[in-house]
C-alpha cells in the first residue's frame, strides 16, 4: 500500500499561503527568543528546539479541524503554537508560571491544552502513540468524525510502542494520522545506526498503513500530503502514515555539543530553510514584498514580546497547591 505521494509538480503558491509563512515565522521567532531566555536562566530544564522543522507542524496542523486532536513530543513548541495554544501561556509555562498552559507543572516538554485538544508534550519516546490510538478509538466509538494527529520522531520507530500502535490502529481502522518527523538523528544516533531497515514508510506498510514520504522542508508539500491523509483518515479508511523528511538546525537540546554530525551537513540543510524557501516563492509570485515581510516580522515580534512580558509578570503557583490534581477535584 506504500505509494509515492502523487506528484503534481511543484505546488502553486497562492495568497493564502502567506499565512503558512506567518505561522512558521511565529515558531522560529518564538524559539529564538527562548534561546535567549534560556541563556539568561529564565527558562530551565530540558528544552528542545524545532528550528528548521517548522514546515512539518505548520503544514500538518493547517489541515486539522478544531475538534481534531494533537499528540506531540517533547519538541512541541511549534505544534502548540500553530495549533492555537496562546504564545503567552506557552511562554508562561516555560517560565514555570501558574499562568502557563500546564500551570508550570510541565515546562517545555509538557505543554497541554484542553481547549485545542492538545494532549502534550510527551517526553517518553514512543509513549504518545498508544494514547493517540486510544483517543481515536474513543472518538470512533462515540461516532465522532475526528482525526488524531500523532507526531513523533524517527527514533520512536525503534520502540515497541510504535509497532504495537500501528498494528492496533490498522487492525481497528482507527482515525490516527501518524506523523513521523524524520530529522535523521535520535538525539545523536543516526537512523542508519539504529535501524536494520531505514525505510520508515516500509515499516508502516508492513501494517497495511498507507505511507507517504514527504519533503518536510517544503510546507506546501507537507500541507498537500497532510490534506490528503487527513481526508482519507477522516473518511474511515483507517490510519495513515507520513514520513516527513526534515532537519533540526539546532542542537538536540541545550546540553548537546553536537559531536555526531558535521557542520557541513548542517550548512547543507540550512540552505533548504523552509521559511526562506517559502518567502522566496511568495516574493517571486509578487505575493509578499519587503513591506509585507517587515510588517509580519513586526507583528510576530510583538506577539513574542507580549508573551515574554506576560510570563515575566506571571505568578508562581502557591506551594500549598503542590498536591492539587494528583487526583481529580471534581469527583464525577
Amino acid at each position, binding site marked *: 500500500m506504500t505509494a509515492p505521494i502523487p506528484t503534481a509538480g511543484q505546488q502553486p503558491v497562492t495568497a493564502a499561503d502567506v499565512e503558512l509563512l506567518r505561522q512558521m515565522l511565529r515558531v522560529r521567532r518564538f524559539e529564538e527568543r527562548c534561546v535567549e531566555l534560556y541563556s539568561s536562566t529564565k527558562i530551565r530544564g530540558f528544552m528542545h528546539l524545532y528550528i528548521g522543522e517548522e514546515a512539518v507542524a505548520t503544514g500538518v496542523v493547517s489541515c486539522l479541524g478544531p475538534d481534531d486532536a494533537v499528540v506531540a513530543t517533547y519538541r512541541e513548541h511549534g505544534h502548540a503554537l500553530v495549533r492555537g495554544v496562546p504564545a503567552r501561556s506557552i511562554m508562561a509555562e516555560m517560565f514555570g508560571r501558574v499562568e502557563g498552559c500546564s500551570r508550570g*507543572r510541565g515546562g517545555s516538554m509538557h505543554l497541554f491544552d484542553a481547549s485545542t485538544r492538545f494532549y502534550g*508534550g510527551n517526553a517518553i519516546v514512543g509513549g504518545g502513540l*498508544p*494514547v493517540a490510538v*486510544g*483517543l*481515536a478509538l*474513543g472518538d470512533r466509538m462515540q461516532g465522532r468524525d475526528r482525526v488524531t494527529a500523532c507526531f513523533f520522531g524517527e527514533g520512536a520507530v525503534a520502540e515497541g510502542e510504535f509497532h504495537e500502535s500501528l498494528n492496533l490502529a490498522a487492525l481497528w481502522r482507527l482515525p490516527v494520522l501518524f506523523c513521523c518527523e524524520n530529522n535523521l538523528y535520535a538525539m545523536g544516533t543516526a537512523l542508519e545506526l539504529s535501524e536494520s531497515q531505514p525505510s520508515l514508510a516500509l515499516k508502516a506498510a508492513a501494517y497495511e498503513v498507507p505511507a507517504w514520504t514527504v519533503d518536510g522542508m517544503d510546507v506546501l508539500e507537507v500541507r498537500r500530503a497532510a490534506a490528503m491523509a487527513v481526508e482519507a483518515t477522516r473518511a474511515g479508511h483507517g490510519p495513515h502514515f507520513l514520513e516527513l523528511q526534515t532537519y533540526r538546525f539546532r542542537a538536540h537540546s541545550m546540553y548537546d555539543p553536537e559531536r555526531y554530525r558535521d557542520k557541513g551537513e548542517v550548512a547543507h540543510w540550512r540552505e533548504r530553510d523552509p521559511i526562506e524557501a517559502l518567502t522566496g516563492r511568495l516574493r517571486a509570485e509578487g505575493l509578499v514584498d519587503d513591506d509585507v515581510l517587515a510588517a509580519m516580522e513586526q507583528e510576530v515580534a510583538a506577539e513574542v514580546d507580549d508573551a515574554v512580558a506576560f510570563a515575566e509578570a506571571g505568578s508562581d503557583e502557591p506551594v500549598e497547591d503542590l498536591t492539587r490534581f494528583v487526583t481529580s477535584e471534581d469527583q*464525577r
Partner: protein
Amino acid sequence: MRTTYRDAMRAALRQALADDPRVFLMGEDVGRYGGCFAVSLGLLEEFGPERVRDTPLSESAFVGAGVGAAMAGMRPIVEIMTVNFSLLALDQIVNNAATILHMSGGQFNVPLVIRMTTGAGRQLAAQHSHSLEGWYAHVPGLRVLAPATVEDARGMLAPALADPDPVIIFEHGSLYAMEGDLPDDTRPVELDHAAVRRPGRDLTLVTYGGCLPKVLAAADALSAEGVEAEVIDLRTLRPLDDDTLAESVARTHRAVVVDEGWRTGGLSAEVAARISEQCFWDLDAPVGRVGSAEVPIPYAKHMEEAALPQVDDVVAAALEAVS
C-alpha cells in the same frame, strides 16, 4: 446468594456494560476465549465485539489506548492477564495514566480501570506468580484495589468506574473459585476504608487480597490457643486507610502485617512503618511481618509452598508478637 469470586466479578462487569454505554472491556482473550480465567465468559456474546474487544498481545498499546479512550470520554476497563505482564505496560500506567492529570495542571483526567490477576499458589512459576501490587501502590495518581471477598469482587468495579482517575484492581488468582455470600440487593461498596474481617483484642493482623483466607484461618487457629486476633483487610492499597489501622492497633497494642509480596521495599514495609509512626507509644511489641521468601516463585509444589506465606507462618508470627 451463594456465588464465586469469579462469577461475582463477571456480574459486576455485566452490570457495568449494561448500565453505561461508555464502558467497554478490552484485553488479551477477553472475548472469544472468555477471559484467561473465564471472568468475561459470555460477555462477547451479550455485548458484541465493539464493547468486548480482544486485543493483540500488545500490553503497552492497549493500556495506552485505554488511557487515550478515557481522555476521549469513554470508560474503558482494560484487563491484563497477570501483574507480571503489566510490566510491559508500565510506561503507560506510570508515565501517562498516573501522571497526566497533575502534569497537565488538572486539564486531563484519566478515568481508566485496569484489572489484572496477581499472586502465586497455582504452580505457574516465576513469570506468572509475583505480587507486584506494592509497586503500583507506590505511585501517586493511582488508586489500587485488592478485593479479597466475593462482595468486594462484586461491588468494587462500579465505584472504580465512577472514579475520575485511574484505578487498578488486583484479583488474586487463587480467589476466583472461592465461594461466598452476596446480598441480593447488590450495591457498590465504598473504597475508602479497610474492613475489620474479624474482631479481636490481642493483636491486629493486617492483610489484603489472596492472603485474607490464610490469615482468617490463622486467626481461628490462634483462637484455639486463646489468642484473639483482629483481622484487617486493607481492601484499598492506595490510598491506605491509616485511621482503621491506628484505631485497631491502639486497642490491641500488637500488629503483624501479612503480604504475599516480598518484604524488602514492599507494601508490608509501608504498612509497618505507618503503624510505627502512628502507634509507637501504643505498641507492646515490634510490628511483625510475614511475606514471601525473597526468591522468584518456583514451580515445584513444595518449593512454591515454602516460598509463600502460610497459615503456620502467620500463627508463629502472631504468637511471637503476643509472647
